């Protein structure tokens, strides 16, 4: 996850609100996106992420607040005059035009000669891996090809920002994985700022330099994927991204260190960054990712912390096995994911086992 953005933000939103009648779709969005960044807006449907994208594109006018792109205030600037281009969820490939005509659609007012435009179209198609497809009828393309045409059509205009509205949601799983990798490569090559809207947390983690998680018109957390995953700032974000075990705990300050007493596991001291939303002495909640816990298989030893439990549920995934382990004194069983390494058996339901844990993997979720 390396990128080298210039210092000044390319896109700047200040306290942007959007109302549709009584419905408050955006509730004070503050956002800065840097040049060259791959930025994702992640959230469940109805959280306002698409509205935010369409506001940046110029299809929705904010009810209040300001939006600047490259230092220019966008108030009153229509979509066709903004330095942004969009890849639509449906791709919106014009069915009456050929692939080349679709890609060259935005060049109508371009002063270049016909031959130069044709070369630009060919280059753009080449870039998305559709060299030689120009003469095809647009409606004869497959889903993945349509998406590439939509990309070529948007990128040919050399926008400052490329907006992608759930571009992969219409593709099947295999194609989606291929396109994820290709999109990342493409973004590195062209260096254009990408803003991706998605409801798929895995996709956001894989592709983005930075992610904003949105709920109900607000940005709940904005961070790089690793921070977002390891240090979510609320229970809601923690549960939306990946799987998180939540346990009741009591926090206390002891000799300038934060110590939490986690139900069923025990006491442990944590670093300040393990409480991204702060911590107050008293009752709180602690989160632990399934892969940071492990099961002590027969014959294995550890010097880490242990807790005894009983296997409640086993889900076998081939490369992994997910165990739900019930620990005395904790209501919810702990979910633990284990790689199926050589020599490791798959435990049966009812097996008595030891859970290995480490205070370094705890995150305090006070909200």
């Amino acid at each position, binding site marked *: 996850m390396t990128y080298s953005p210039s210092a000044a933000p390319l896109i700047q939103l200040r306290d942007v609100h959007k109302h549709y009648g009584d419905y408050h779709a955006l509730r004070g969005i503050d956002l800065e996106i840097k040049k060259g960044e791959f930025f994702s807006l992640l959230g469940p449907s109805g959280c306002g992420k698409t509205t935010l994208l369409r506001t940046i*594109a110029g299809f929705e006018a904010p009810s209040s607040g300001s939006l600047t792109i490259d230092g220019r205030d966008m108030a009153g600037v229509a979509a066709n005059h903004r330095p942004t281009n969009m890849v*639509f969820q449906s791709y919106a490939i014009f069915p009456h035009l050929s692939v080349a005509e679709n890609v060259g659609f935005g060049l109508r007012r371009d002063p270049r000669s016909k031959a130069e435009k044709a070369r630009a179209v060919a280059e753009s198609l080449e870039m998305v891996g559709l060299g030689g497809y120009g003469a095809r009828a647009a409606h004869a393309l497959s889903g993945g090809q349509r998406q590439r045409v939509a990309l070529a059509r948007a990128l040919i205009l050399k926008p400052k920002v490329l907006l992608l509205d759930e571009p992969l949601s219409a593709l099947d799983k295999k194609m989606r994985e291929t396109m994820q990798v290709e999109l990342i490569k493409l973004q590195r090559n062209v260096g254009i700022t990408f803003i991706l809207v998605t409801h798929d947390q895995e996709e956001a983690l894989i592709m983005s330099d930075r992610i904003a998680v949105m709920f109900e018109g607000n940005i709940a957390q904005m961070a790089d994927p690793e921070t977002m995953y390891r240090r979510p700032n609320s229970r809601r974000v923690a549960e939306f991204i990946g799987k998180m075990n939540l346990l009741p705990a009591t926090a206390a300050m002891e000799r300038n260190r934060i110590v939490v007493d986690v139900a069923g596991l025990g006491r442990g001291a944590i670093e300040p960054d393990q409480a991204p939303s702060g911590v107050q002495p008293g009752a709180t909640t602690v989160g632990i990712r399934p892969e940071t816990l492990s099961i002590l298989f027969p014959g294995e030893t550890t010097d880490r912390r242990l807790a005894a439990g009983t296997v409640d549920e086993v889900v076998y995934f081939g490369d992994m096995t997910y165990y739900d382990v019930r620990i005395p004194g904790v209501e919810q069983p702990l979910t633990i994911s284990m790689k199926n390494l050589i020599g490791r058996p798959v435990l049966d339901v009812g097996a008595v086992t030891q859970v290995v844990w480490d205070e370094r993997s705890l995150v305090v979720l006070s909200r």
Partner: protein
Amino acid sequence: MKKGWGLRAYAVIYLAFLYAPILLLPLFAFNDAAIIAFPLSGFSTRWFEQLWTTQALHDALQNSLIIATVTAVLATTLGVCAARAGTLANFPGKSGALGFIMLPLVLPEIVIAVALLIVVRQVFDLELSNLTVIAAHTVICIPFSIAILNGAFQNLDPSFEEAAMDLGETRWGAFRLVILPLVFPGIVSSLLICFIISLDDFVIAQFLTGANPTMPVYIYGLTRFVDALPLIMALGTILVTISITLLVIAEYFRRRGVARAGLKDSGGFL
């Protein structure tokens, strides 16, 4: 035995019932006898020759063509507005307004004719003319136009317009370069269907026509004269030929529209 053979046989008989009158038309139009009855007496084109030399018929035809052309253009223009609005955002009262425009579909035609007659003669005290017929025909054609164009507009991805604007076009440019080419076949269908409806209408024309009758009014007048029967047959043959030709053209454009938009053909105008 093939599945549904009973239904298939029924369908064939039903089609025969639907087509029987039309198939009889040319039979008696080219028959060399003044009465419409079997057995046929021989081939003749004299009824067509007589049509060719009847001035009143030519006037009626010209009248009808003018009325049908203006009606088709007017109704389709208004139909495009309504159908396009149907695909845009809702506003309070939109479905009510659109429903009201469609009302002539479920109103007995004679009521529309009578109501308009009252307005024209009693309220405004205007003379009946081709204009009154055009105005009334447009009222009954708009719902058909909307029904045809709705299909064309609803097949459009709502993102098309935004995509075109995102790529630098104005809203008008987006309409001209993307929306219009995609709905153009629907517009042609609508023009042709409205043209046929107007050309064919008798009830409204009889109430609202001025000094110059339209074609159906003229034909209706002919039906009172027994010796004019073969003439009507000949005229009918010509009209049916024109209608079917226009229909085939309309269907061709509709299918091309469907193919162009890359859709599956679900068939039918209505």
